[in-house]
């Protein structure tokens, strides 16, 4: 958007054009709202634009990992690769005719609630607009978590390359080079099988072993795709079957962590089949309850670790030396390229450092003091007319995030409808309602595998509190976000209604 300056007033501003932002734009536009989406990146796509590392693909079956309002019969694989998902999002934007509603390359610098005008003042690097309603759709996995470790400057000065998996540069060639992959999470297990055959040597620094189930990814045959296109009901059936199957996992994760033993034996059998050496297998066997950290799926990660040129070091990265990485256990390995597959900032969302609510309070400060919390994962006391998509305690470890996003967007849509119908200018959750909601969450989180499983994970904040996950089925979340209950909110009528009636206006 070079050259364009944004001014004026928009009813709804959405920050971010990833899966959540696009969903909000489509649904709210269909509901008759005038929406402007601000995206700091060069294109739509969110994580599916940023994570362009080799091997990147979805962990959830694509018929499920897509919008209910935009079924896609053309997925090439059960787990579509990243370029396909990105293309899907772009197609959705195009088909919905939203291209002129999205401004890419516009970064929101700050947004302030104006309690007199009852609007958000959104300041960007391309001008300032005001909005009645602000929807933050920045996602939970947008800001790479980059460990600050000693020796980095010396490492790069000596010619070493360091790249985060979510900031992959296509011209980075690992052929014949010594590569260290830091991490063994979702990104790492997709990257390693791609890099291993090209690298001269590959070292995987593993802090905690992940539980990995068989992926059984396969191409969707053309005939099946044609049938999906001809009879959309068959695709819907597949979608709901996948959905129902994945919801079963909730039973184990939330209610009966002991049931996760079944998943563990599945994983251990997978490990046994794929890793013949019991020593390597011992290093790859997790020591916590499955589900405590995200359960991963892969059929080619373990075989890659069996390769002669691949070594698993069971220790995290502690620092760099010129031409080498040093693990926390003191192991030193020479490396030309370091790939940080270290994940994302999940418990301190960067957008919170840019949003100021009533009285100029910064959301990040509010959350630092009181913990990251919201009402129904979406609205925050002190921040009227702000809706967070993928907000606190809306993540999940078992199914498609799109389910959550659609539920939350439905909540926003209902809020906007309600506001219009009731003549409400500002909607702000009551402190009591928000506290009651979070007390309920906390009670439900006790006893879940995420708190009892014996691991530390990106689901937890610095105090071990699980602030990212929804403790229940997505059905339950959908029900909780179906309608806005005005009893939970402080409603403010338009300022004009409060002002004394102008002479002549009354009959």
């Amino acid at each position, binding site marked *: 958007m070079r050259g364009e300056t944004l001014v004026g007033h928009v009813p709804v501003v959405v920050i971010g054009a990833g899966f959540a932002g696009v969903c909000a734009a489509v649904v709210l536009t269909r509901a008759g709202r005038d929406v402007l989406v601000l995206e700091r990146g060069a294109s739509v796509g969110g994580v599916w634009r940023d994570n362009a590392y080799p091997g990147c693909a979805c962990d959830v079956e694509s018929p499920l990992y897509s919008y209910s309002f935009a079924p896609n019969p053309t997925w090439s694989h059960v787990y579509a690769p990243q370029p396909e998902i990105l293309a899907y999002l772009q197609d959705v934007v195009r088909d919905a005719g939203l291209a002129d509603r999205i401004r890419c390359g516009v970064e929101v610098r700050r947004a302030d609630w104006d309690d007199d005008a009852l609007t958000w003042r959104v300041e960007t690097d391309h001008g300032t607009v005001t909005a009645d309603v602000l929807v933050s759709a920045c996602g939970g996995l947008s800001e790479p978590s980059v460990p600050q470790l000693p020796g980095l400057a010396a490492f790069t000065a000596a010619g070493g390359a360091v790249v985060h998996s979510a900031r992959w540069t296509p011209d980075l060639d690992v052929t014949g080079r010594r590569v260290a992959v830091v991490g063994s999470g979702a990104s790492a297990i997709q990257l390693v099988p791609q890099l291993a055959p090209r690298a001269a040597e590959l070292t995987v620094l593993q802090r905690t072993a992940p539980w990995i189930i068989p992926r059984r990814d396969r191409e969707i045959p053309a005939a099946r795709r044609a049938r999906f296109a001809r009879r959309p009901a068959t695709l819907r059936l597949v979608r709901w079957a996948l959905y129902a199957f994945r919801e079963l996992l909730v039973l184990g994760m939330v209610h009966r962590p002991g049931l996760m033993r079944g998943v563990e034996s599945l994983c251990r059998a997978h490990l046994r089949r794929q890793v013949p050496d019991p020593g*390597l297998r*011992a290093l790859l066997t997790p020591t916590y309850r499955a589900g405590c950290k995200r359960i991963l799926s892969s059929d080619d990660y373990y075989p890659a670790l069996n390769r002669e040129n691949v070594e698993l070091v069971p220790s995290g990265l502690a620092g760099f030396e010129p031409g080498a990485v040093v*693990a926390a256990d003191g192991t030193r390995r020479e490396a030309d390229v370091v790939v940080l597959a270290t994940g994302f900032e999940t418990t301190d969302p960067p957008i919170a450092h840019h949003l100021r609510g009533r009285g100029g309070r910064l959301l990040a400060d509010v959350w630092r003091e009181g913990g990251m919390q919201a009402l129904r994962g979406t609205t925050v006391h002190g921040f009227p007319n702000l809706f967070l998509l993928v907000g606190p305690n809306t993540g999940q470890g078992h199914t498609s995030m799109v389910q959550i996003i659609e539920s939350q967007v439905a909540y926003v849509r209902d809020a906007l409808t309600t506001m219009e119908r009731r003549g409400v200018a500002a909607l702000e959750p009551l402190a009591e309602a928000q506290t009651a909601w979070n007390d309920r969450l906390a009670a439900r989180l006790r006893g879940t595998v995420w708190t009892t499983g*014996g691991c530390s994970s990106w689901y937890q904040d610095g105090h071990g509190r699980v602030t990212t996950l929804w403790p229940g089925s997505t059905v339950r979340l959908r029900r909780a976000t179906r309608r806005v209950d005005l009893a939970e909110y402080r409603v403010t009528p338009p300022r004009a209604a409060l002002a004394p009636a102008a002479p002549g206006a009354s009959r």
Partner: protein
Amino acid sequence: MSAPALALYPADFLPPTPARRLTLFRPDGARLAVQIHEPPPPRSTADRGSSPRTAVLVHGWTCSTTFWVRVLHRLTPHLRVVVYDQRGHGRSSPVPAGGFTPEALAADLAAVLEATVDSDGDSGGDGRPVVVAGHSMGAMALVALAGRHPDVLHRRVGAALLASTGVEQLMGRMTVLPHLGRPDSPAVEALARRTIGDARALHRLPLRLARASLVRATMSRTATPVERAFCTDIVLACPQRTYEGFAEMLGDLDLSADLPRLDVPTAVLVGTQDRLTPPWHARRMLAALPCPKGLVEVPGAGHMTPLTAPDAVAAAVRDLAERPA
């Protein structure tokens, strides 16, 4: 807040990370995966001057460096330890055609010693010997080296441990199968060859039965369930071609002429319940060694002593390492 760790493997079975890894290229095309484990730097100033002594551990038929894991945990606090995957095993390359010979194993060991151990038979200049500990076919590689590379033996090796091994009549002396006749009768030997060397048959068995047969052959009743699982996993991970190639070699092996040339202090270790290489071998070797340093009998142990009797094996290695040359 967090639940107790649900560890499946005792810490003892988690392979330590080597300080360095080498890939050793052999002239016949084989590649050997070598690991060097360094002890932690000495704490007291008195020890600081001398570099640590070295032990080189050589695993046996169908095993790998993983096989030494428990001994490694006991030695690495005190010694520099070199372990490697013998050709065809673990992360080393498959055996090139014609490579299933004691000559090749001896030359591999010689090359590993040349690459990882200083000459003069010590690594610190303080007259302490480098100990080579071989288990089963690993010990045979050492005996073969004594016969074929005496120069390497004298320059690099200060002491030796022959653990659970033999150098002749390997098939005939086994007690894995029920006794059908005199131990050295041709019929018993032929049967042993047929059954012991058939990797395909082993892998065709249901896993439970395959494990049971391996446990029967290689371990004693005292082996714990974890030891049994770990040991049989290692053997089952061995490529079938390696398994059968070396089985054939072992059937004809006779290194009795090389044994008298192993003229460094040599200890012999055997489990009393060893069915693959029964104590008969140990006593016979001890009698033929030019510089015997005692027989360690591990009561109740089977063939896989480094896995089931790691304390005894590690103690024997440290004993040799600390013995003045």
